[in-house]
Structure formats: C-alpha cells, structure tokens
C-alpha cells in the first residue's frame, strides 16, 4: 500500500516537473521526457505490472490535461512500462547502462508511435525532418537526463517502497 502511494506521488511530481520545470531547461524547444524515464525505471526495478501501472497513470494524467484522444498516451506509456518490465528478470537494476539503453529504445518507439498515429495519419509525410528535429534530439536529451534521474528513482525505490519484489513478482510464482 505504501509503495503504491509512493508510486502515485512520484508520478504526480514527475508530471508537475515535466509541465513546468523541464520547459525551463529545454534546448531548442526540445524537452526531455521525464515521464517515460519513470515508466522505464519502474518497469526495470519492479517488474512488468508495476511498470505498466506507472505508465498507465502517467499517460492518463497527460491525457486529462493535454490529450485530444482520451487514453492514447495512457496506452503508449503503458506498453513502454510493460515491455521494460521484461528486463527486470534479466538485468541487474544497479547498472546504469541498462536503464539508459531501455530509455533510448522506449523513447524512440514512443515518438514513432506518436508520429505514426497522430501525424502520418493526417498526411504529414516528412519523417526524416521529424526524426532529425524532434525524435533524435529528444532521445539524446532524455537519455542524458536519465543519467541523473535514474539514481533518484533508484533511491526512491529502495528507500520508500517495499523491497519484497521477488516474492510479489507474479512471474516467479507462476513459472
């Protein structure tokens, strides 16, 4: 219960930072994607289910305030969190390289999904422009920010959330 509350609080804080503070440090109108880092790190540290819920609720917040289609961002973030949860069993979460790589992959997929579903369908065909101007800068900036932010999430996970994840991880029980 406590870890759920902490998770929800972290999502709220990240959303607030994403909408206000991160715009102040944006470079060339590109802001890093803090919410995605949160989903990926939660997936990596706590498993698929937790990553999924983190993604769902952070996407839901974005949908509530800025989305045109309710549930769109929730869906994308949810999948990002879920698939990074597959890394939970296979990698140690105290190695910084894994979350960075996962963040990069998830950010590319996230942006491609947004492009394909919201821009390509409206006939905006210049993928290369978007790739060079929006997607790649965002990926690099996000990975750079993740370098610092992941340690914060790591600290939050092991100090404020219950560490009984090996037992609560249903994959272990079932398989």
């Amino acid at each position: 219960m406590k870890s759920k509350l902490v998770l929800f609080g972290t999502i709220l804080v990240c959303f607030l930072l994403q909408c206000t503070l991160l715009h102040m440090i944006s470079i060339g109108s590109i802001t890093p994607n803090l919410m995605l880092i949160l989903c990926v790190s939660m997936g990596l540290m706590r498993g698929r289910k937790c990553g999924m819920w983190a993604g769902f609720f952070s996407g839901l917040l974005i949908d509530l305030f800025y989305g045109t289609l309710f549930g769109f961002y929730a869906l994308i973030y949810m999948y990002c969190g879920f698939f990074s949860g597959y890394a939970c069993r296979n990698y140690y979460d105290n190695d910084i390289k894994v979350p960075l790589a996962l963040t990069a992959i998830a950010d590319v997929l996230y942006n491609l999904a947004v492009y394909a579903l919201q821009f390509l369908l409206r006939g905006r065909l210049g993928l290369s422009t978007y790739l060079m101007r929006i997607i790649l800068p965002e990926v690099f900036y996000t990975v750079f920010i993740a370098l610092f932010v992941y340690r914060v999430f790591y600290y939050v996970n092991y100090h404020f959330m219950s560490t009984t994840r090996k037992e609560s991880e249903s994959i272990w029980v079932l398989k």
Partner: protein
Amino acid sequence: MKNLKKKSHFRINLKSKHLLGIMTMFCVSTIAATFASGVTTEPLKDAAGMIIVPFENSISRIGSWLTDIRDSFQEKQVLILENQSLKEEIDSLTTQNNKLLQDQTELERLKQLYKLDEEYSEYPKVAARIISKDPGNWYDTFTINRGSEDGIRVDNNVIAGKGLVGIVTSVGPHWATVRSIIDDSSNVVAMTVSTSDNCIVTGNLELIDEGKISFGQLYDQEDRVTIGERLVTSNISEKYLEGLFIGYVSEVELESNNLTKQGTLVTPVDFQHLKDVFVITVNKQDVRSVETEGSPDEE
C-alpha cells in the same frame, strides 16, 4: 478468512499479460469513445485539475520569483551595454515612428474600407499567466491560470498584445487549456488585409525552427499578395473573431494545383518566451447572435 485467501489467489493468478490485455482494451475503448461518440471527460479533468493546478500555480510563481532575483543580480556591464543599445533603438524607433504616423492615415482609411473597426480593445479581455505546457515535443498547448470562474469559456480566442495566440480548448474552474496557432493540428481561416482574400493558416511542426507557420489555399490570380502582407482572422471563420492580427507573409508560391497559393508567415508573438496572454471572453458565436438579434431586418 477463506474468502480473503481466495481473493489473494485470484490476484496472483491474473498474469501481467492478461492485465495488459484488459488495460489495452480499456484504453482502446476510451479512445474510440472520445473519438467517435464524443464522450466528454470534463468531470475527470475538473477533478484532476483541482489537484494539479494549485501546484502548477505555485511552481510558476516560484519560477518567476527566481527569474526576478536573477535579473536583479545582472552585472553592471550588461546594463551599460543594454543602455547603449536601447539608446540606438530609440533613434531607430523615432524614425520608425514618424513613418508610422504617416501610415496611420492610411490605416484609418483601410479600417473604414474593410470594417475592421472592431479593435481588440473593444472586446472584454481577461489577463492570464501561462502556468504549464504540454509534456511532449509534438504539440503546442499550454495551461493558463484563469478558468470558468473568470468568465473563460471553450472557443475563447487568446491574444498576446501583438497578435493571435490560440484558442481555448477546455476549461476548468481555475484553469484553461489553450491550443496555440503554431500547433500542428491548428487551422485558422485568415484573410489578407489589402485584398480580403481568404486563406487557411495551418500550424506546421516542420517550420518550428524558423518560427513560422504556413498558409495555403490563397486564391490570388493577379499576384497582388506580396511579402509583408498582413494576415488577419477572416470574417468567415467559425470560431475566431474577425480582424485579429495573425502575422506578416514571408513567402508566397504557387501551389501544385496552379490555382491557389501557399507560403509561410511570421507571427509577431514570441511563442518560445510567452508568459502572459489575454483571453477574449466573447465568442464569435455570441457576436453573431447579438448582431442578428439587434437587426433582424437585415436577414
């Protein structure tokens, strides 16, 4: 006790991929619901806004406080340089002002000609501060700290001193979301001031670096629209009040259909550093209904 045990068993048995499937179904159905049947999520938005917006307000207040402090610590040298450049600017502005005074008479004539007498100042306005922006890099929407209790409604036009900024898309008691005209999904019907030709101004993410927005479907056979032409919101626009200044034409070229023209325009609004905006609390629909009520003979 038995019940409890059963419950916990059930929770474990729900595999994460099944949970993912359920949640995917949920998301897809909400997308379909909002897309196809226009189910509104206003109550949810209001509830979330009540929690989030006070925080955003305070963060933006702290942010502006910090900028004030930083500004007050600016170095003397910087101020001297600034003073110098400002003096130069005064000189150039004086000459410009003389020129503008000459243009004033022309403007008066144009106003009469095109009935743009409804200046911005005649509309009731509410000043608002931008407290947060959308989290992604794909769209340009932002939240302001005034809402329905200050008289703001959906489809209110938003301006920032010099020109049109955007339109209100959703409203809570103490906040409102604004979609700016440089947003990739924004479309505004505009007209040229000198020839009253209509065109459509579309936000375009590909032009983001140049600070421009694109326009198209401008019918101009006699090549009368040139660079520097002013574009204002059109009288046939459904949601934008007539005569709000959008920007200056910076490029014009023939479209591939050889009939209409397209190009780019520069807005006088600095969207990168936008902080304070004005919301016009009159909608186009109200203006129209008042006009028809006032003069029923003209119909």
